[in-house]
Every structure is written in C-alpha cells, then in structure tokens.
C-alpha cells in the first residue's frame, strides 16, 4: 500500500507577507516530483512549511499524511511519521557532535528499539564512507565549519539513515562534485520504491537523470503542473522570466 502526502489548497504567509497561493498536489511513495522555478518563488518555503517550520503560517488549506490532516502536528511529529527535509543551508549546531545528534534522533525515530552503540557506529561509518565523508566527522559539531559540499553530504547521509516515507530535497544536488551527485542519484533510485520525493533543483542535467513522475513550475507563489518530458522547455521558460 502506498503512503500519500497531500497538499490541498495551501496558502502560506510569512510575517504577514504572502508566499504561496492555493497550492495543490499529491505525492505517493514511489513517485518523484520535481519543482523548479526562479529564485524567491517560494520553493524552499513550500518544503519547510510541509515539514512544519513555525515561521510559516498556513492561512488556508491543509496538509494530509494518508488522509490525516497534519497542520497541527509539531515538526518532530511530522519527522517521526516519515517526512524528511534535506536543508538547502542547514544551521550549524555548535558543540553537538554528529554522532550524538544522530543517535539522539534515532531514539526518537525508533523509540521501541534500543540503539546499540557498537552497531550504531558501524552503520554510521559505513554511511560516512558511502557519502564520502571521513570517519572523524562523527565527532565534528553538526554542520559547524562544514563546506557547502560537506553540508550536503551530511544531509544525504541522514536521508540514507532515516529512509523516510517522504523526502523533501531542497537543492541537495547543488555544490556537490560529480561523484557525490552520482551518490545522490543512486540514493534516490534506491529509496524510490518506498519513498515519495519532492525535489527542488536548479540543475536540469541533474533532474534529467531521474525518472521524474511529476514536474511543477513554481512562479509568483503559484504552482503550475507541467509534463515531465517538457523539462527543458519549462527550464528555458524560467530563464526568460
């Protein structure tokens, strides 16, 4: 059975400023939805509000997870229920090591499961290797003095660790070298059967390598459905804006 994430008539404001108007779409596990649009069109805002960011007010409309409204859910409840956001530029968390942070997060994701320390580190080392980060990142402060590429790799690592039902990827491909970008592509393909993706990207060559099921153009706060096979045409439309 597929899980379904629905955005129904979402109108969003931030500090009384209107950001998004009457957004509708539905994502099922197994699907890959791409959202493209010019800078400032509200792509990141849409992803953050689905994840429950407190700065965005949903003035009308509803988010549903499997027909259940989640507007009132705190961000952690949304996360525990399988909604994952890969941040475009995550904040540094001084003094909190990657290992401590991830172990704490896992406890909340799997409260019934005792996280065995040895197993945890073995898994973490394997994931670090997979995303191309050295082992000593376990003891680095989360996103502290990370390069742009390292930040993205840590976000990717968490996507692999949590295996969410819905992955909202906010320019996860940007700032990565070709090899790391290939890892992102592989990860998406691997997780696809059990995950629904909403991917925000400016890189058409990246999106071309994915089996997109849906494509949207976000422009002036409105989401317009496009045909995924028209990716290049839509992209050139953005350039002209």
């Amino acid at each position, binding site marked *: 059975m597929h899980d379904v994430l629905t955005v129904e008539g979402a109108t969003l404001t931030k500090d009384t400023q209107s950001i998004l108007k009457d957004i509708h779409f539905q994502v099922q596990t197994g699907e890959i939805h791409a959202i493209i649009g010019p800078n400032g069109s509200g792509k990141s805002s849409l992803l*953050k509000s689905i*994840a*429950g*960011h*407190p*700065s965005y007010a949903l003035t009308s409309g509803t988010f549903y997870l499997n027909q259940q409204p989640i507007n009132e859910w*705190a*961000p*952690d409840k*949304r*996360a*525990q229920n399988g909604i*994952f*956001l890969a*941040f475009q530029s*995550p*904040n*540094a*968390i*001084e*003094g*909190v090591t990657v290992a*401590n*942070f991830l172990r*704490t*997060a896992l406890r*909340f*994701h799997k409260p019934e499961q005792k996280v065995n320390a040895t197993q945890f580190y073995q898994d973490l080392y394997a994931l670090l290797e997979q995303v191309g980060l050295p082992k000593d990142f376990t003891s680095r*402060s989360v996103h502290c003095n990370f390069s742009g590429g390292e930040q993205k790799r840590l976000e990717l690592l*968490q996507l692999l660790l*949590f295996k969410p039902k819905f992955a909202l990827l906010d320019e996860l491909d940007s700032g990565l070298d070709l090899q790391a970008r290939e890892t992102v592509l592989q990860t998406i393909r691997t997780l696809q059967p059990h995950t629904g993706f909403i991917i925000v990207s400016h890189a058409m060559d990246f999106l071309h390598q994915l089996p997109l099921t849906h494509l949207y153009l976000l422009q002036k706060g409105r989401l317009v459905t496009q045909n995924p096979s028209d990716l290049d045409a839509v992209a050139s439309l953005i350039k002209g804006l």
Partner: protein
Amino acid sequence: MASATDSTAFNAGFGLNQNTIRYISSVKNESPSLLAFRLQALETFLKLRLPAWIPNALPPIDFQKLRYYVANTQRAKKSWDEVPTAIKTTFERLGVPEKEQKFLAGVEAQFDSEFAYAKMRQQLQEQGVIFTDSNEGLSTYRELFEPFFAKIVPPHDNTFAALNSAVFSGGSFIYVPKGLKVQQPLQAYFRINAERSGQFERTLIIVDEGAELTYMEGCTAPIYDTQNLHAAVVELVVKKDAKLQYITVQNWSSNVLNLVTKRGWAEENADVRWIDCNIGSKITMKYPGIYLKGRHAHGEVFSIALAHSGQWQDTGARVLHLADETTSNVVSKSISLGSGWAGYRGKIHIQPNCSHCKNSTECHSLLLGDESRTGTLPYVAISGDSQSVCHEASISSLDEEQLFYLQQRGLNRAAAVSLSVNGFVNDLVQHFPLEYSVELKRLIDMEVENAIG
C-alpha cells in the same frame, strides 16, 4: 529526614556567639591559638558589612537562627561498608546511579560536618600525599598547613570568609609532595543533612614544586523548607612548576544560599585552573580567584552557571596578575531558564609593576525564557603598556532555525532545546572528567526539560 536528625551526636545548637565558637573548638580539641583565631574572626565578622554590590536577590540572613556545627559522628569512617545505611539511602534518593555510588565510595564525602568515609587515604599516604580534614590538618600536620592557613583567604577578605573562619568544620586539607603527579583525581562529596544547618567547610590544598593534582567536589542536597547557608572557603597554594585543577559541580537544593570564597596562589610557572559548574542553590555568589604571584604563572577559570526560576547564579572570576609574563584565561557560560538570573561578575587586575601579561575573558549568556535574565559585570584594571587584555561577551537566545532542524530530525522540543543547550556549554563540559560530564549532561537535560515541559 527525622532519622538523619536523630543520628546527630554533636551539635552546637542555634545562634552565633563566643560560646558557639568555644563549643566547636572544644569538640574538636583545638589548640588555644586556633580558638583565638576563631574568636578573632568572629569579631571581624561582626564588624564587616556586606559589599554594596551584593545582588538584591540575596535575602537578609538571620545568623542567630542558623546552626553552626552538626556532626553525626566524631570519628571519620573509612570504608563503604562502614557508611551508615541512611547515607546510602540518601544517595539512592538523590538518584545517584549504582555505578556512581561505587565511584563515590572510593572518595571522601562529607556527611553533616564530618567525613563519612575516606577509603583512598591509605594509598595516597604511601605516596606521601596528605589528604585529611581541617581538624587533623591543623593539629597533626600543623607545621605543614598553618603557614598557609587563612593566608590566601584571610578572615577580613569578606563577610562570609570571616564567618567561615569563625565556625569552620570539615573540608579537605591536602598536601602533594614535590614532583608527585597524582594520577587519580581526588574527590569530595558534600551534602547538607540537618535542617537549618550551615555548611562551613574549609579546604586548603598545597601542591608542592613540580607536583600535579586534580581535585573534584560535587555538592548535592535533599530539599528542605527553610533556608540553608553554605559559606565555604577554599585556599589553594600551587608552588613553582606545579599544577592544580579544582573542579566543582554544585547542585545544592533550591533553598541553599551558596556564598563561597575560593582563591588560589600560583607561584612561578605554576598553573591553577578552576572549573566550576553551578546548577543548584537558591543564590550562588562565587568568583574563584587566582593570584598569579610568580613569573610565567598561568591561571584559568571555566565557569558554567544554570539558573531556573527563583535562582540567582552570580558567578565569575577574579584574577590578579602580580608578576611578569603571567597569563590568564576566563570562559564563562551561563544559561537562564524561566525567570532565573545567571551571569558573570569578574575582576581582572594587572598591576603596574608587571610586564607582558595576558588575559582573555569570554562571557556568553543564553536566555531561554521570556523572563530569563543575565548580566555581564566585568571590572578590568590594567596598568602598563605591554599587557594584552581581551574581553568578549555575548547574549543569545535559542536559535529557532537550529531547533527546527533538530525537531525535523525527530527530536521533541524539549530534547532539541536540551541538546542545543548542552552544545552551548560543551566546550567547557569537556574539561570535566567523564563521570562528571555525563552527570552534568543529565542535570542540564533535567533542568531544561523541567523548564520546557
């Protein structure tokens, strides 16, 4: 707590006068000169006034309503087996895990005003270390300790130092012989027992030339209705090329007034480090001091303070550069929850006859509630043109973007705040031994989660 009161074998009753002091001195079989010292200190205490800058939060203290000496036994216990069940039960009630109880069993603890047990002493004796209490220190080892006793913190230093000098009992007296590097940190565990009893420990540590020592103290106390005064004095003497690290985790119950005077002497090329964490008490006023007396001496004060509603953590540092090329480093991090006040008050003084001295001071405050308060109150007096001094301060509140990130990874709000707060103090917590840092993290988690709900 009736059983604890019942087990009290000696107490000086309530109130403070010459008779109280004579009683304490006689119970301890002290020399006439020590009695004279106490009586003189009482006179000093009666003459001294509280400093003008004292926080308004400090309530008037009726010294006649306090108890100044309570001992549950005259003879110090030596092993865990001999520790009365009532004390073990108290540890359990305090939630000290079994592992930590064992950890504590190897240490010196104060129960009421006397040592409850001291297992480590024999091992240390073989190395020539003297690890005893103030009474024995000033009788059996008088020649060793008396030259420094009340010299680093004389009774006239401040009101509470005078009070302590008059009525002190308990505390650790330690001597580390030349060149000995004590591998195991020495530990003390204090708790207040009888209601309205004051705690007036007196600690004197002498680390002889080239020697090294880490000393740890942790305080915790059951909750009582009435106010408790804790006015300890700690004196450190760190001789040429020696090192001393003094670590405190203070977690008194929320009715305790914790007014402590701590000062250390650092001679040539010596290293003194105070690592201080204040979580408990109603009010704490504590500014660990360092006198950098010898050339190239180095001093550090690392301070963590956490105050929840109803608490006032007035913490900081006091560093006096009295010789050339002396260096000091002060880092203070305070966390205020609810309507709590936690901040920094400090004095950095470089004397005009010194050259090439350096100080760096950092004060960072984190405010978690809308009514949380902090203050950074530095006093910096520098003379001479070859000195280098740097003072940095910041006040921040919780970073909502950071919390959103943590919550997006599944942590609930309280856990996210807790992790963020632990991150804020992590660089200082790392200086604590592992057992303490784990406990500290647990204490911070508990405090934050209580405040956040």
